[in-house]
């Protein structure tokens, strides 16, 4: 693995498989950012199970050899708000049951930094892959149960929604990847759906999906949504555009 940076920002690093270790012709980069703040305590085990199930389902996909997955957690408990569980690596190297520790919720919500880390790392690594002749696209899932908290101007994140949007715009105008789909997923977010929707627009994120209440059934559907959407985006490589088969709801 090697370490990359998002832009010139030392505080936003990510790890990834060395390019000289990659043998295929094309890859879909997948980033999953999971909220580990105090408020998810009530459903942390089910959220963890959803993560494990989603990645295990991706391992069974016919496209599994062409997926590189990065998983991060976010909370103000972590230095820089984000902790990388693992960087971009192939599914063959991931055993979700042993590699993903149970969630230990705590701290507040650096949602902007988490989004920037998830999206920016895909764009940065994707740019390198594209320069090295790999056909590359990406898909990002930011799973949260709340908005940036404390709210601005005393918020914990170092980046702004505008900076996230500029990063996304850069990837589009520079054709750094063939396409990148960004999805903000809200769980138990009935009380802040409007703010999350506003954040989604300000940050240039493609979709905001409200899962609804954090029940076992809904989180199981979340896992299925992640694996199906990942497969769809992976099948879209080479078409010149993003998958058009991402569901608008879970």
């Amino acid at each position: 693995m090697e370490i990359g940076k998002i832009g010139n920002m030392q505080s936003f690093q990510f790890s990834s498989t060395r390019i000289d270790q990659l043998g295929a012709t094309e890859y879909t980069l997948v980033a999953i950012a999971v909220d580990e703040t105090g408020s998810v305590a009530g459903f942390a085990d089910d959220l963890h199970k959803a993560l494990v199930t989603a990645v295990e389902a991706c391992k069974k996909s016919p496209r599994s050899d062409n997926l590189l997955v990065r998983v991060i957690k976010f909370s103000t408990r972590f230095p820089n708000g984000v902790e990388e569980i693992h960087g971009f690596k192939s599914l063959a190297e991931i055993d979700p049951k042993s590699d993903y520790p149970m969630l230990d919720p705590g701290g507040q919500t650096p949602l902007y930094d988490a989004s920037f880390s998830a999206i920016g790392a895909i764009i940065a690594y994707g740019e390198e892959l594209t320069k090295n002749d790999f056909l590359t696209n990406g898909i990002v899932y930011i799973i949260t149960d709340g908005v940036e908290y404390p709210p601005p101007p005393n918020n914990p994140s170092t980046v702004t929604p505008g900076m996230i949007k500029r990063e996304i715009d850069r990837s589009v105008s520079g054709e750094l990847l063939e396409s990148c789909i960004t999805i903000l997923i809200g769980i138990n977010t009935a009380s802040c759906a409007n703010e999350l929707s506003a954040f989604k627009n300000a940050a240039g994120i493609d979709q905001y999906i409200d899962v609804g209440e954090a029940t076992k059934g809904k989180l199981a559907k979340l896992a299925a949504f992640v694996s199906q959407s990942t497969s769809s985006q992976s099948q879209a490589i080479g078409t010149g555009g993003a998958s058009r088969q991402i569901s608008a709801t879970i």
Partner: protein
Amino acid sequence: MISLYTDHYFHIGDTHLTAGKPCQDYAISSVNNNAAFAVVSDGCSKGGHTDIGSRLIALSTINALYEHWTKIGEFNENASQKIALHQEIKLSAIQEILGLKLNDMYATCLYACITSKGGFIFMQGDGVIVLKYKDESLALHRYEWMDNTPFYPVYRNEALTNFIQLHGNDLQNLRFNQEIWIKKGEEDFQQSGEKINFTLSQGIQGITVYISEECLNQELEFIGIFSDGVCQIQDVDWKDAVVNFMSFKNTAGEFAKRRMIMGIKNFKQEGKKLLDDIAYAVVRIEIEKEVS
């Protein structure tokens, strides 16, 4: 110590794509027991099911190469004749089993077989052979038949007679030629000598380019074999196309496939179409310095 790696790729040309025809070029490669094999076959567009023929030619050739290497253990001067015989035996059997006509098998055959002791590249038909060195210098050998009527290894009896008649009915006629171009570093290509003209007889027997052990040790990094589709990219000089497809950004796994996919994509974005199917296979030579 020398390590060998291979990769290959083939892609349908726009003419066949829009006409609803399959890709009639095929390529295959592998490393087997420390020997590298790379094969390219280009089916005749006026033949029968030559998409199948080119595959059968390539697969029977690589199979014959495996067997020869396994049983004989070296590729000497007579190897190409023995390999051709094994290939013919396999093709005859397959043709009969599948009920194929002779014109389904009209396809060229170009292959490389390389070991740590060297090897050779053999061609019956047409195409381009490339030697690329670590200092980025290149030697390109292009082979063409007059009237774009190449020899196909399956020609026999009446088909062979017809082929000879098409080329003037004299085995000494000069109907097949080779041009060699050299590029050193950033300099432009320079043609090495005049075009060499071969007789019809020589073209039918096939052309061999030997690769010595010394050559392998003298910084030769890649051997590439191309179908003549590389010479038919709209508004692209064939030499520039070869340079493009041999400019590998990295060398793990499907390195040649990645380069050609991206190269074709970039050409298309510039409005430069593939006028013909294209195939290539590449052998990569890696020399590990021994630690004393």
